[in-house]
């Protein structure tokens, strides 16, 4: 897993528009490596996003989400300065998390 997570949250109208990029191989278990061996399944199964500590988005993903997955969502009623956190958990129990503050429009 190369790059760390990236996040950007910015006010658009009355909602915070949030874009997150996670670094993860999202292996389907169908791909073969250079040696011709099947690379085992390994993907982010769950993502939780919070706004000022309250869960706003509860995501379930399968292996059919693209590698280095992107997630965009919007929080109505958020304000500049509010805190957004995004946490993922994968099939091995590994986690990744990032937080940011909502920027003004």
């Amino acid at each position, binding site marked *: 897993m190369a790059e760390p997570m990236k996040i950007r949250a910015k006010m658009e109208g009355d909602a915070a528009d949030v874009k997150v990029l996670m670094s993860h191989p999202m292996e*389907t278990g169908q791909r073969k490596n250079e040696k011709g061996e099947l690379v085992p399944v390994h993907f982010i199964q769950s993502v939780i996003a919070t*706004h000022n500590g309250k*869960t706003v*988005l509860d995501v379930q*993903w*399968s292996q059919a989400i693209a590698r280095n997955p992107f*997630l*965009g969502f919007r929080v109505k009623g958020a304000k500049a300065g509010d805190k957004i956190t995004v946490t993922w958990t994968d099939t091995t129990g590994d986690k990744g998390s990032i937080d940011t503050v909502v920027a003004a429009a």
Partner: protein
Amino acid sequence: MHQYRRTLLKAMSAAMPLAIAAGAGLFRSTSALAAAWNKSGFDAKAAADALKSLGVANAQPSKDIVLTAPDIAENGAQVPVTITSRIPNTQSISIIVDKNPFPLNSSYDFANGAESYVSTKLKMGQTSNVIAVVKADGKFFTATREIKVTIGGCGG
């Protein structure tokens, strides 16, 4: 003596689901417990079974679901899809890719002010219908779009 045993058993049975969830890696340190991962749905090989696992019954097509995606995906491994539901009281959006080996792609539950909107990138193995399934007020609605795929993205 018996009261102590009952109290202990009650406390243990209350803790067990949390212990199992923690062991399974489902417990998070945020304030809410997330929904359990829909294994039977994600393992389903037919779209109809995937829909059943979501509890979908009597789904109605709806023009109030906006499903934005390319008509032709250059790369089946990264197909951008954006879904907006204008149906009031939308609780969740799920994505089904009809012709994928496992049609249930992902599910998104909204709460506490989240807009019924999601944007992500899917893997598609071949040209297929992509179906957005919206749950609102306990009822189900769908919108469908065919996306042509020239190079499949499932890893083969």
